[in-house]
């Protein structure tokens, strides 16, 4: 059983080596190799998850021979393994369900390059979730940025290059701030390992030294990671990046990459610096305020958007706002709700992006009005898209409902913040309902005018692509599981947060 302790390391290395090997394979071999490796990573993560739940504690794994203050470490508890399972599962399902979209969008003979980026992204996200060392975290943030940039560029139309450059520039600004924060934290505490930093921060906080410096460090890291995850004032790159790239890239970027940064932020807040210190220096109010503003403004911008894919992208801004609002509440329940929303939104957004591919690729639909009547032609995709839309709006039985319930429950009992949070939740839910149900209604309005001007309607993916059906159905099921069996998952999250610090 103790052999399982090696699995986190194996899963990181497996996907990284896979990325290297893929560069010499042809497209068909690359496709199957990626699937096998990502599937294997899913299995490894499941094993680690069950192992940590069973033992009820977290483990530290030395990278190299040197113990704590000098060596590099991997640390895993049930929260880390749950997040890794989520990342690898979403990556696996997106790749499987989006096979057709990848074949359409990526240049011939270059598909293996796309799969390299997917593997690199997965391994960097896994490393970000498992690592116990801040500088390692920084290095993998940069690898993730490079992979994300490539994922935007795989669709070779001129404007994706410009979009990717802008994404890269903004991301580099964020990682520069983060690195500055790490450097200053290292000079203040003399450590890079999260557990050691926490001890010395607790000592310094008790003596009351370096208060201003700590606030600066926390601020730098918060702003850096907020820029990279696309929180409200730094969201300008999101609509282009998610709206123009390949659907698989959009789904990976919105549901895993931006969530990886938020997970690292939670790790820094709870594990590295300690939530009490964070609370006392007041940055949580910034989190809360920006989160609330993002929830409302993201939805308003989505409401005004005419392009279908960009509308889904704008809704990501609102959903990132939900997560930051949960963290900003400053309670254990708030952070747990935020973590649950990471999973709920990831599962929903990837379902929405990938099921929308059949409308956008299949019949060259760009605007929301053009969706009219497509629900009858592409029945399966329309059904799955509706499930995703209902989930994100927050219908009972689905994932979005539970996360909104948790966020609302966490907000209660916070004085003034309680009313702001509940009001923002209500307004944002109504706006969500307006713009998502609008697309669902459009899908099922019978289109009287025959689409004669569109002779190149492609037959539905669902007819001739089993991979697509399989991937999408599993994503729908994950949404249902998160909605119906949320109890055990919330338990895992709470236990994970307990042993986190």
């Amino acid at each position, binding site marked *: 059983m103790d052999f399982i302790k090696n699995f986190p390391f194996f899963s990181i290395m497996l996907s990284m080596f896979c990325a290297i090997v893929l560069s010499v394979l042809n497209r068909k071999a690359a496709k199957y190799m990626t699937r096998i490796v990502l599937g294997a990573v899913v299995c490894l993560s499941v094993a680690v998850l069950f192992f940590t739940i069973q033992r009820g504690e977290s483990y530290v794994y030395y990278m190299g021979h040197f113990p704590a203050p000098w060596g590099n470490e991997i640390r895993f508890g049930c929260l880390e393994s749950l997040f890794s399972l989520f990342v690898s599962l979403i990556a696996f399902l997106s790749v499987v369900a989006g096979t057709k979209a990848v074949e359409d969008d990526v240049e011939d003979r270059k598909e293996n390059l796309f799969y390299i980026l997917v593997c690199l992204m997965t391994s960097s996200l896994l490393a970000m979730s498992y690592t116990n060392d801040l*500088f390692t975290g*920084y*290095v993998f943030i*940069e690898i993730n*940025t*490079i992979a994300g*940039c490539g994922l935007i*560029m795989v669709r070779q*139309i*001129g*404007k994706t*290059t*410009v*979009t*990717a*450059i*802008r994404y*890269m*520039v903004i991301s*580099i*600004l964020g990682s*520069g*701030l983060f*690195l*500055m924060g790490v*450097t200053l934290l*290292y*000079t203040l505490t003399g450590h*890079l390992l999260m557990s050691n930093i926490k001890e010395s921060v607790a000592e310094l906080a008790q003596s009351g030294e370096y208060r201003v410096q700590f606030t600066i460090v926390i601020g730098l890291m918060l702003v850096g990671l907020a820029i990279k995850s696309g929180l409200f004032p730094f969201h300008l790159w999101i609509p282009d990046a998610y709206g123009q790239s390949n659907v698989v890239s959009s789904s990976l970027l919105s549901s895993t990459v931006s969530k990886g940064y938020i997970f690292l932020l939670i790790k820094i807040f709870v594990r590295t610096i300690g939530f009490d210190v964070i609370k006392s220096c007041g940055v949580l109010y910034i989190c809360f305020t920006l989160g609330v503003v993002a929830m409302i403004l993201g939805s308003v911008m989505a409401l005004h958007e005419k392009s279908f894919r960009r509308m889904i992208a704008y809704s990501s801004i609102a959903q990132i706002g939900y997560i930051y609002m949960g963290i900003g509440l400053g309670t254990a329940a708030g952070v747990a709700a935020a973590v649950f929303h990471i999973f709920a939104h990831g599962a929903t957004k990837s379902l929405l992006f990938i099921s929308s591919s059949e409308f956008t690729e299949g019949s060259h639909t760009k605007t929301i009005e053009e969706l009219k009547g497509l629900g009858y032609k592409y029945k399966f995709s329309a059904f799955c898209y509706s499930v995703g839309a209902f989930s994100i709006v927050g219908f009972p039985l689905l994932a979005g409902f539970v996360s909104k319930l948790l966020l609302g429950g966490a907000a209660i009992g916070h004085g003034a913040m309680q009313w702001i949070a509940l009001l923002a939740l209500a307004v944002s839910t109504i706006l969500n309902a307006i713009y998502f149900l609008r697309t669902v209604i459009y899908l099922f309005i019978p289109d009287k005018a025959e689409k004669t001007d569109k002779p190149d309607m492609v037959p539905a993916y669902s007819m001739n692509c089993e991979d697509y059906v399989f991937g999408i159905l599993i994503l729908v099921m994950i949404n249902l599981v998160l909605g119906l069996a949320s109890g055990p998952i919330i338990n895992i999250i709470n236990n994970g947060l307990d042993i986190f610090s």
Partner: protein
Amino acid sequence: MWNLIVRHLNDLVAVALFVIGFADLLFQKNMIKKVIGLNVMDSSIYLLLASQGYITGRKAPIITDGVMSAEYYINPIPSGLVLTGIVVSVSVTALLLSMTIRMYKKYHSLDLDYCLMMARGEG
């Protein structure tokens, strides 16, 4: 006051360079200037790290004459971090430059705002 400035000269210069590089990366329109800004910003952080690791009057962390006590050597970890950081920033710079070449071939301009406008125009 003057003493404080002299003692923390490295840190002050590093922070000043960081601000200059950050502003360059954020506000310059020309991609090459942006890349220069990125490198100034990253180098400033390495300057800060390297100067924090150096302790005046001590030797390079290589055991000489059998002296094992850490009291005689400087802190080697920041140097290692600087090396790692340099590798990261080199790869990011290379990627950004290669994308700039792509953008230039397509739009015949290095101005990011202009190219964004052109790209929007494509619909």
